[in-house]
């Protein structure tokens, strides 16, 4: 992982990159999560089905963002932009659903 923590010094390699093995591990984790979400859907858990599916999807999304999209290795400004995007989406979802789900 030493390459991942290298500081952008030289111009040609001014970026943080994990080793390729990280991608294979993340890919394997994504496949396990896919199997789990399809497997869980075979059981009737009532309203829990939806929340479990959404939870697993969010876990997969986080893995993709952090590793495949390099957020984990990106400067704080990228973190801020990505987080700000989700913060505004959360406001949209929270206030709209607060209305519709309580009617």
């Amino acid at each position: 992982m030493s390459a991942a923590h290298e500081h952008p010094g030289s111009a040609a390699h001014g970026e943080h990159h994990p080793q390729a093995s990280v991608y294979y591990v993340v890919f394997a984790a994504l496949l396990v999560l896919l199997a789990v979400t399809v497997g869980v859907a075979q059981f009737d858990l009532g309203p829990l089905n939806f929340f479990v599916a959404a939870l697993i999807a969010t876990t997969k999304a986080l893995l993709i963002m952090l590793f495949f999209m390099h957020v984990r290795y990106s400067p704080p400004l990228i973190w801020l932009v990505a987080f700000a995007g989700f913060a505004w989406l959360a406001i949209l979802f929270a206030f709209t659903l607060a209305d519709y789900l309580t009617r």
Partner: protein
Amino acid sequence: MPAHDAALAHHFHDASQQRRAAELGMWLFLVTEFMFFGGLFLAYLVYRHWYPKEFALGSHTMDLALGTINTFVLLTSSLTMALSVHAAAASNRRMLILCLWGTIFLGAIFLGIKAYEYHHKYVEHHIPFGGLEFHAQSPHRLGLATFYNLYFLMTGLHALHMVIGIVLMLVLVVLAYRGGLLGPRSIIVHNSGLYWHFVDLVWVYLFPFFYLIAARGGGHG
């Protein structure tokens, strides 16, 4: 001042700054894309709350096997995309071209399976627009039409993003064959990768929301 090199635009101080600026710009674009699909997902949640029974009925008509295979195909294409970015940064031209072709190939398989599913929906009369014959029983007709409208709108927009992504990858392959995109110029591959992973990320939510919404096992699985 650093020595001027062809990969560095004159208004940037150095390659690192240029790279960070390009990446930031791509992320700002992706945030607008998050907002765009976010609104549709919100519409999905509201309508799902209004028509829980119809959404369950609708999701039972989806082909779970094909949806699972397509998710697998798309996740694999994200792996080949990540490896493309890795190869470009490491100036490994052969590996870059190989992984880009892999990504294109897997993206095309995804679209092929999606087209087959759309055709199946057409045959089953599950398309509630375009003046086509729409088969649904009267108490559930409106809710089912809403489900299928959202299905075609959201997966259709996702497929459109896939088509754009594949065209982008074909451009990258041409540039890679010409010897570009390597080392300091790999930011183009990096940003294209961000786009591809974003499209994958949207599908990660579309798949459970349309295919897995209701239990299929009926009690004991």
